[in-house]
């Protein structure tokens, strides 16, 4: 898929995020939107997956360690054909399979249940280690939040991945610089993130995580790096794509009302049309 098509897909993914969260009347739009371009690239370009065979043995795996941004993952999976886009409206509803946080037991395409911050990366490391031990060539991707990396378990996992030279693992840090209580810098700074991962023997790539061309270059580079896991520090804008949500921590875990929803969808429609021209 070319860059313009991917950008177009990312618009659709963002629409799905808003639709899901709007109908749920709760959920996390901010961090879903910041990571929408990354989700899109992963599922429409990067990963070896088959929506008709989500449990394919040698598929690439993805763990959403920052599990609260499930709307981003679900919208991407739905747009990729793992389940109907129309089901996004059932997010967080009683009886829906679309749980508030990723649930591998009930959602096609979800490789690991996650949501309790800090835990997903370890599972991804286990998948990567398992692949190495079995001589399989699948790759494993994990996405963490910049706030999430305040969890100590992230660094236990990073130490292990670096020690075992898991070059089949790519970690993406969605660095939107906002967490619930403020900027990550104000709350408890994880910076410099790049030097920390480098110290744990990672290959570090820093990009604008809302720029599809830079995203593509970063993932391609990760493939070529041997004997080291890669971390892509993706500098993003929380709420990206919806003007009034951008860089506003208030949109971390809040659903838009009807007026806001319609306004947001209108903005995305226009953005999509602009790409077409």
């Amino acid at each position, binding site marked *: 898929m070319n860059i313009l098509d991917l950008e177009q897909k990312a618009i659709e993914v963002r629409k799905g995020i808003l639709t899901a969260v709007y109908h749920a009347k709760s959920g996390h739009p901010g961090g879903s939107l910041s990571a929408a371009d990354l989700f899109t690239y992963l599922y429409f370009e990067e990963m070896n997956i088959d929506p008709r065979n989500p449990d394919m*043995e040698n598929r690439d*795996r993805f*763990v959403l360690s920052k599990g609260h941004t499930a709307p981003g993952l679900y919208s991407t999976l739905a747009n990729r054909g793992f389940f109907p886009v129309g089901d996004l409206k059932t997010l967080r509803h009683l009886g829906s399979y679309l749980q508030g946080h990723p*649930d*591998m*037991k009930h959602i096609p395409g979800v*490789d*690991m*249940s996650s*949501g*309790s911050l*800090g*835990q*997903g*990366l*370890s*599972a*991804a*490391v*286990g*998948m*990567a*280690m*398992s*692949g190495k*031990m*079995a001589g399989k060539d699948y790759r494993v991707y994990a996405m963490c939040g910049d706030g999430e990396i305040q969890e*100590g*378990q992230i660094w*236990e*996992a990073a*130490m*292990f991945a670096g*020690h075992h030279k898991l070059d089949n693992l790519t970690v993406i840090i969605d660095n939107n610089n906002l967490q619930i209580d403020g900027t990550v810098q104000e709350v408890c700074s994880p910076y410099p993130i790049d030097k920390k991962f480098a110290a744990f023997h990672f290959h570090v790539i820093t990009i604008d995580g809302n720029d599809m061309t830079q995203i593509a270059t970063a993932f391609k580079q990760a493939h070529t790096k041997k004997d080291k896991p890669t971390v892509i520090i993706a500098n993003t804008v929380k709420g990206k794509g919806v003007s009034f949500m951008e860089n506003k921590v208030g949109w971390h875990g809040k659903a838009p009302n009807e007026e806001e929803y319609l306004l947001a969808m209108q903005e995305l429609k226009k953005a999509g049309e602009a790409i077409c021209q």
Partner: protein
Amino acid sequence: MSVAKIATRDSYGNALVELGKMHEDLVVLDADLAAATKTGVFKKEFPDRHIDCGIAENNMTGIAAGMATCGKVPFMSTFAMFAAGRSFEQVRNSIGYPHLNVKIGATHAGISVGEDGATHQCNEDIALMRTIPGMVIINPADDVEARAAVHAAYEYKGPVYLRFGRLAVPVIHSEDYHFEIGKGEVIREGKEVAIIATGLCVSEALEAANKLMDKGIDATVVNIHTIKPIDKALILEIAKKSKYLFTVEEHSVIGGLGSAVADVLCEEYPMKLTRIGIQDVFGESGPAVELLHKYGLDAEGIMERVEQVVNNE
């Protein structure tokens, strides 16, 4: 007559080697305690399938979960304190919630850890693990049962918490013993008094029952190796036949075997139950045998408590 004594942690290591020979998908994870948890014997035999995660139990728990999603059968091993205590939430969310096929080999459970003292004596692990939906909990009584339990845990699809001890304990089962998850065992038939025990307290309860004969008390002894799912039918059958009912465990009376039996009784057949165990206190340093004596968990302590209850009627 001398009875062979083996610590169930040794049984764990030996069973892993037996299973490793048969099953390529079995992997063993440890957190810098391979010599103590006895996974070191597996490491010697299968170095490529033994992963030392370093002193990072929470990460080890997640790695085990991730490997299970890829078809491996991980046995993750550390002390009960860290497996069930420190990593409780990782076990709940990364293993329990997705019901992954991870086996937790928790050694050094209970007060019989001994000299290391209260920080390492986990008397709460069964209570914690019981609250996780779908978790199987096995607390074997001796070497034969422990090895059988490890084999059964491998065959079972889903998360299993296996509880092992540091102290060498008498081997009370013969090699032809048939083990089945969730099925308790009557090891001594008596009258009126029944002692339901688990783990290393089973051999102590058996010895207590033999000594009680001299005092005119003929006690039934039941081995409940699987705390969850508990053998409700057997507990009710024993309760209905007994006038005095006891549970004995090297674990807090809060949330362990005593609580599990009480749960069954209060809903199905209310009767008085005396729970022998750690009475909501922290342990302390000392030789394991002396600690078991001080906390009333050896044959003598069990015997005294049974006599006390029976004679006070």
